[in-house]
């Protein structure tokens, strides 16, 4: 069945890469997938979005995702700036990179909100606050549409070895610590 994912980040934070890796991983899981950025003109620092669709058959839809099943938020400061939950299905899940707990976040939605402090993990393992890839560990854990194995494969395929390794470690760690 068609699943739609939206990722919020800031220009330069790699939201597009999150979505791309997710699409590649889903494909490796034997599904069809698609990924694209919000077609904007945002400069570094400005809020941006990217999307992934996953389905059993070739995806012909090309409209923006307005009713996501899942949302990932790479930067918690965005929550005050935009409605990250906009259009999400009631049964949806929102994963936020933050040290806060879901209840501390002011997200008005019936969807489930999950938080995990990915920045901390990234700083520890990667040595820099690159959260876009590690975030996928949380996705694999709480949403499961895409397997951890495939995510790791996708990362290996797309990144230079050294960087891949650190990112995979971070993904694994995030997978480990994230809980519904």
């Amino acid at each position, binding site marked *: 069945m068609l699943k739609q994912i939206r990722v919020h980040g*800031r220009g330069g934070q790699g939201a597009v890469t999150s979505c791309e890796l997710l699409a590649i991983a889903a494909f490796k899981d034997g599904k069809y997938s698609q990924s694209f950025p919000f077609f904007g003109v945002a400069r570094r*620092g*400005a*809020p941006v979005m990217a999307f992934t669709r996953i389905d059993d058959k070739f995806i012909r839809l090309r409209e923006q995702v307005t009713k996501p099943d899942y949302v990932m938020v790479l*930067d*918690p*400061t965005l929550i*005050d*700036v935009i409605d990250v939950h906009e259009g999400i299905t009631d049964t949806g899940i929102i994963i936020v990179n933050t040290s806060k707990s879901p209840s501390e976040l002011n997200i008005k939605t019936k969807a489930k909100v999950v938080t995990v402090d990915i920045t901390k993990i990234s700083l520890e393992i990667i040595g820099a606050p690159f959260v876009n890839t590690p975030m996928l560990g949380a996705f694999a854990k709480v949403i499961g549409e895409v397997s951890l194995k495939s995510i790791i494969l996708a990362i290996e395929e797309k990144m230079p070895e050294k960087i891949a390794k650190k990112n995979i470690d971070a993904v694994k760690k995030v997978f480990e610590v994230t809980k519904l």
Partner: protein
Amino acid sequence: MTIEKHSPGGIIKDVGSTTSNKTGSWRTFRPVVDTDKCTGCGTCERFCPDGSIVIDKKKRKAEVDYDYCKGCMICAEVCPVKCIKKEIEQK
């Protein structure tokens, strides 16, 4: 569906109207002026790409306009007395 009536050719008469776009939300770092140290020299003001620093003429102190400051931290770098601190933006 109603079409907005645009001025022919898309002319914008409301000059300087990007002020409606609060780019302060882009900030990940926050420049904080130590007003004690600040000499009001205006260097930061001169170099700010976003016109987000005003030198209070009376107090002779720099003031950051956080509505627009994008947190590039150029001001901190150029301040001759190094009185602008880089903080992580918390909201």
